[in-house]
């Protein structure tokens, strides 16, 4: 069971990419992309977890007690919020595509031949 978190993160990575490749709707595609993104958070936090470790916040926990790794929490915390706005940018592009092409199906955009 000790490799379950890594397996789940690899599964989310691949299933999200599967959704992106198979998608027939740009908004669906962007949400599948956010699933791929979630897999990186699961992996980062799983890597930094330590058995019996408390959260690295010493508001009520005595100093020096065993904690989880604070660095991965730092990396993930900012990334979660930032990726939300990147998804918003992709959604804005999808809405633009619909306005210009009249469809959200990525296969019908295809003005970029050759």
């Amino acid at each position, binding site marked *: 069971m000790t490799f379950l978190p890594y397996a789940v993160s690899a599964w989310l990575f691949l299933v999200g990419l599967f959704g992106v490749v198979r998608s027939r709707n740009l908004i669906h595609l962007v949400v599948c992309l956010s699933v791929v993104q979630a897999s990186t958070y699961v992996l980062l936090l799983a890597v*930094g977890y330590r058995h019996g470790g408390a959260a690295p916040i010493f508001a009520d926990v005595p100093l020096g007690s065993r904690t989880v790794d604070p660095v991965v929490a730092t990396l993930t915390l900012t990334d979660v919020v930032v990726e939300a706005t990147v998804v918003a940018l992709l959604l804005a592009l999808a*809405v633009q595509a619909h306005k210009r092409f009249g469809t959200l199906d990525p296969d019908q955009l295809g003005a970029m031949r050759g």
Partner: protein
Amino acid sequence: MTAVQAVALIVVAVAGTAVVFTPDPSRQAIVASVFGLSLALLFFVFQAPDVALSQITVGTVALPAMILLALAKVRRRERARNDS
């Protein structure tokens, strides 16, 4: 690896797969909200409360809101195009 963590991981995997296999974006936004909540619980179980708080506000509230609003704009334009 406590039982709660294993369950949280399974729920996240199932929810993520559900998000991918929901073709209709409006329903997918709701499933994505559930997926965001399951991720927040997982991060909470992984002793990362800061990230759990971020994920709750982003994954459960902000992201689905943005998806639904983008859909509303697209549907509105389709309606407008059918009217004219």
